[in-house]
């Protein structure tokens, strides 16, 4: 059970949150301009790094806000959280 620091509510148990996968995947502005392969890249291809991962979480049972987190996928240490729209730390 992670202890996740919601940027608004502070540290809460993981059970209040839902995980949203890799962060900073922007939806293509003009999907029609993309080849099938490029579209597949947006849809499915993921960095899945061993180590630092920028990812999205939603404080679903709290303030309902989405935010980003920088988490190590090997140690599970959450190194930073930041609000949507803020720069990657």
């Amino acid at each position, binding site marked *: 059970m992670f202890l996740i620091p919601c940027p608004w509510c502070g540290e809460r148990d993981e059970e209040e949150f839902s995980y949203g996968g890799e962060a900073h995947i922007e939806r293509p502005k003009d999907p029609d301009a993309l080849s099938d392969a490029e579209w597949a890249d947006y849809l499915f291809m993921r960095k899945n790094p061993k180590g630092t991962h920028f990812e999205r979480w939603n404080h679903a049972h*709290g*303030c309902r806000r989405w935010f980003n987190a920088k988490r190590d996928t090997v140690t599970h240490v959450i190194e930073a959280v930041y609000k949507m729209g803020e720069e990657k730390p």
Partner: protein
Amino acid sequence: MAHNPLRQSPLAHLGLIARAGQGADDAGIILTEAPFTDHIGLRGDGADTAFAGAVEKVLGFALPISPNTVTGKAKKTALWLGPDEWLIVVPFGAADKLIAALGKALTDVHSAVFDVSDSRTVISLSGANARHVLAKGCGLDLHPRTFGPGSCAQSTLALAHILIHQTDTAYRLYIHRSFAEYLWAWLEDAGAEFGVSISTP
């Protein structure tokens, strides 16, 4: 309490009023359903003075801007739910007027005001072991050093979503209507080892 006889709380069929006062005097838990307050959902940008100012004018007090806090005055309470979301609790029957007033005040401000009075019921939990009972099913740290009167938080209790508001005398648990029966039964079960007394609002 006078109310439209057609209206029913989600726990009406449990006969709680008939059971009131049957618990032991030294019961560690006192449970009360406090239905039929009016609830208004309010959305808007708390950092936008146009929004916050307009709301303050209507309510007569400022919305809580600090996360997980409560403000209020004269039987009106505002609970912080998120940076752009509040729950306004007012006496039975007061919602329509307030919604209209808020709507009018916020005509030109991006916001949402909507009635959620019937979405939830409130269970009030007090007694010497109230915090122990909540600790059985809720991961929030409710120790007085971190949570006290005037605090509120959304979280989970057992397997259901709740909104907890601690007052000077009790924990008020705002519970979604369809989960009310489940949570009431859960609270009675969790409280059994401390003794449960049911009281009327």
